[in-house]
């Protein structure tokens, strides 16, 4: 499979990365080079093989159902959460208007 400029533009839009025409043009052969190279995976017989989801056998834990079980990641951290926001207003994240 290979991608054309329109497909790359669609992927870039899905990935929310603005790209100029020139950037899209440059990206097409680069992505096709990589995609053509990974095509070789199609030649492997994977009959009966389950896709790997956990590399080392491990059980998923639930944390204790306790408020602020770990104070570091618990609640009451509004100012710390907002400390690096490019625009924090009135204790919230500020964003451009999203309704007309």
């Amino acid at each position: 499979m290979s991608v054309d400029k329109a497909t790359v533009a669609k992927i870039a839009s899905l990935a929310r990365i603005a790209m100029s025409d020139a950037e899209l043009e440059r990206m097409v052969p680069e992505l096709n080079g990589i995609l053509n190279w990974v095509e070789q995976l199609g030649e492997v017989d994977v009959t009966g093989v389950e896709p790997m989801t956990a590399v080392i056998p491990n059980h998923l834990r639930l944390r204790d159902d306790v408020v602020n079980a770990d104070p570091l990641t618990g609640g009451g951290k509004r100012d710390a959460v907002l400390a690096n926001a490019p625009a924090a207003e009135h204790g919230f994240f500020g964003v451009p208007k999203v309704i007309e």
Partner: protein
Amino acid sequence: MLAPVTDLTSLGVKAIRDGVVSGDFTAREVAEAFNGAVAEASALNAFIVTTPDHALAAAEAIDARRAQGEPLGTMGGVPIGMKDLFATKGVQTTAASHILEGFKPEYESTVSQKLWDAGAGMLGKLNLDQFAMGSSNETSYFGNVSSPWRKAGANAAMSPGGSSGGSSASIAARIAPAATGTDTGGSIRQPAAFAGISGIKPTYGRCSRWGVVAFASSLDQAGPMARSVEDCAIMLEAMAGFDPKDATSLDMPVPNWEASLNADLRGKRIGIPREYRMDGTDAAILESWEQGKAWLRDAGAEIVDIGLPHTKYALPAYYIIAPAEASSNLARYDGVRYGLRDLPERAGLQDMYAATRAAGFGDEVKRRVLIGTYVLSAGFYDAYYTQAQKIRALVARDFEQAWATCDAILAPTTPTASFPLGSLDADPLTMYLNDVFAVPASLAGLPAMSVPAMLNADGLPLGLQIVGKPFDEQGVLDAGLAIQQRAGFEARPERWW
């Protein structure tokens, strides 16, 4: 007796720790010596920010504890470099990306906190490939890192490897005795090999990922880089351990790797994977591999031939899985919560996202996010992503079957020695091939280490890689120690910076 300050920078982790304990020098003297060496080495561009005050404060705390007769910790008095992928409270953490420029975390990563708790101090935040995506340290927003090594008789700036290139360069240049690294598909081992130092990626889950900027979460694993196997063992012990804040953290005790080091390999079988003998592999690399076999045999190990039949598919599978996870992980950089915001005039929310990410991500990051988005998109998911996950299972099965006939595996770390910065720019694929020997162990989550073997004809270091069974860091470190003792690698780059 006080050692001259200039000598202190030639010491490693163990020598510094033990010297501080016995009073040969103070932790403050060590921190001052390394702070000075860092300040003089800006030509390497190994650090994004330096934190001499952090190193001094940690050192003074150690000296005060010693005066009180208190224990100093397993890393007591050792100033280290911190790869700028670990969140450090109040200290800029960027992942070498413009999109995180100015980001000062409100919290400390688990791994860095453990190192401070063990008595270490921080010299600064080390440069790396942007979001750890790269094998040459040429994708950083903050500029390339130069290796301290150069080809004999040449002046071209060489790659320190990547993504932990600031880590490898600073250790090889003796401006840091040790540093943290992270390894997603070779990012500890390949730069260690290029710089003539040691580095170990432990079993997936040994070191907490909490507070480490995420690249590909099913592969990312932190580990130490230093100039000896002993120093790696000491530092890994300080970094590892269960952390409830990381869902994939291993709930297992941390072994006493340092105390158990044993280079006597009698009774051990070392596997040589025949598939790693690839076309185009440098003759000197193959020669170092032969030498490595002889060293391990000399240490008492039996060398056995093994097969890892899906080796050639590991790298292409990795270049589906890692970008897929990256495209998902990097969705968080939206210009809203932290980091860069680019808000063009009259732009709406969606335009702000797209403009922010366009301005904030470098070319290699964009390439991987696009590949990841494509392979996860409707209609292509099964053909690419599910197929790659099945092949990942086969790569892991190859290793499981190999453990029936061997205890550890010896292979080259890289297919070539370091190359000049800028020489592999033309095609991203050529760069990806650097990790062909490193990626299989990453896909299988196995502990793997690179140790320096020798210099090639150009005077550049070559590394040997040892891959072990899950949870058997000890076996990896022991084989590494056996090589270290026989290689006698003492070469160091001539100072030009």
